[in-house]
């Protein structure tokens, strides 16, 4: 894709800029859509209607929200650390935006096809932690600080089971490249890693239960990484008011807000890329059967977005159903259950792969 843009503009730098802006064009409307979806989903689950007045069924609601947040006064508390306070939301947003660089939207477009794509995504999401800690510390507010501390402890802990589960896929796939991992699970849904991966045989069937376990662990820890219920204790509304972004107003808050929803999509994208074939269609492509080659990437993009939205929807579903855990219970879930289970899971999968 980069080559195409370079060719079109005739300038490598311009091509690069355009190439890197594509996820932004994608991520901001997507985040806005998710905010709207969250409000509608929650409303319908709760016997309400949700936004109805602003646009038909409130579809303009989040545009109005962001436009309003733009107009709001930008308050920096007198005792806050001004520099850190300003950098923090940018860092958080940058972290979640940078993660999009290595996510394969379709076989035709990936921001940067690096060989250690999945490693990069996990690492760059770590930036978010730094941003949150900065926000909490610089606000000079006790609630913010508590929220930030909780958040850091939680995200760093849950990174371990996430990585362990991803490792088990890497063992099977033999690559860290997300595009290659997606490409492997091509054609039909039984080639997805959740169903044991593309290689047929007895081992494939033996893998299935461990793959399901791995998927559950990954999904649960991804919930924790994006601070969603039942692990939303860093911004636990009923305890810490608004957690680490208690002191943020206006556009700075909007950055936290949008990056939260962008992050939700990132983790959903990873879950779908490693277990559910990424951008691959479950039933083959209309473009292939009709012989229209340019239709395939568009279909792939559709499937990728659809899978992402589905997992985001499940996150919302959980949020509006479950209560939240306490901070020590949250740690217990991670260290006492998820990490040992994911270790065992990894070892078994590695053995199965060894004896394939």
């Amino acid at each position: 894709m980069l080559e195409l843009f370079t060719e079109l503009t005739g300038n490598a730098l311009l091509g690069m800029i355009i190439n890197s802006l594509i996820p932004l064009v994608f991520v901001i409307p997507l985040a806005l859509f998710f905010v709207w979806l969250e409000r509608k989903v929650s409303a319908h689950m709760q016997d309400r209607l949700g936004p109805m007045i602003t646009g038909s069924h409130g579809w303009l609601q989040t545009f109005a929200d962001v436009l309003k947040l733009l107009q709001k006064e930008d308050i920096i508390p007198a005792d806050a650390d001004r520099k850190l306070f300003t950098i923090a939301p940018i860092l958080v947003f940058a972290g979640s935006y940078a993660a999009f660089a290595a996510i394969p939207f379709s076989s035709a477009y990936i921001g940067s096809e690096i060989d250690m794509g999945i490693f990069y995504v996990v690492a760059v999401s770590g930036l978010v932690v730094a941003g949150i800690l900065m926000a909490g510390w610089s606000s000079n507010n006790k609630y913010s600080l508590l929220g930030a501390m909780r958040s850091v402890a939680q995200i760093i802990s849950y990174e371990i089971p996430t990585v362990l589960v991803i490792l088990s896929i890497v063992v099977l796939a033999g690559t860290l490249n997300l595009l290659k991992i997606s490409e492997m699970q091509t054609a039909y849904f039984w080639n997805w890693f959740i169903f044991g991966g593309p290689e047929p045989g007895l081992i494939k069937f033996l893998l299935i239960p461990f793959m399901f376990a791995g998927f559950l662990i990954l999904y649960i820890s991804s919930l924790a990484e994006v601070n969603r219920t039942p692990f939303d204790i860093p911004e636990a509304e009923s305890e810490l008011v608004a957690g680490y972004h208690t002191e943020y107003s206006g556009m700075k808050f909007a950055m936290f807000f949008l990056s939260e929803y962008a992050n939700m999509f990132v983790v959903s994208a990873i879950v779908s890329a490693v277990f559910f074939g990424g951008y691959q269609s479950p039933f083959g492509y209309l473009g292939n059967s009709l012989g229209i080659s340019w239709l395939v990437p568009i279909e792939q993009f559709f499937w990728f977005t659809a899978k992402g939205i589905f997992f985001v929807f499940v996150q919302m579903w959980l949020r509006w159903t479950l209560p939240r855990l306490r901070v020590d219970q949250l740690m217990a879930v991670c260290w006492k259950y998820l990490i040992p289970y994911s270790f065992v899971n990894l070892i078994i999968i590695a053995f199965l792969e060894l004896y394939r």
Partner: protein
Amino acid sequence: MGILDKEFSDSNIIITNFDNLMNWARLSSLWQLGFGLACCAIEMMATSASHYDFDRFGVIPRNTPRQADIIIISGTVTLKMALRIKRLYEQIADPKYIISMGSCSNCGGPYWEHGYHVLKGVDRVIPVDVYVPGCPPRPEALLEGLLKLQEKIRNESSVKKTA
């Protein structure tokens, strides 16, 4: 608003359209400070709950004053509470609006005569945009108050001072 009042003597068509857009954004997304005082707070909760559903108008509760746009003073303001309310008001980022809900916060309500610890009207400490009468006002009345506030915002201009 009045942020541009020095530069332009009168509004022209661009400013007007820009104003309309901005006013529309503000009035469609009035985030309320999740904060209840007394009896009226229960009616305020009922207004946000399933039956009346404040969210239809884009009103959602935010718990921190920094991210709120309107504060609904829902109940009796006591002297002990008055200065806290003033502080909350000051913490809200501009532009901010106040709805005074119920007789107590309008004027002291039934406690006007012998209430040695009741502030007779929240407008003695903070400016109020819309007063909603009633003790307590029905959720419909609060919705009406919100619509009145939206009307008020719709007529605001960034060029001329409205107040």
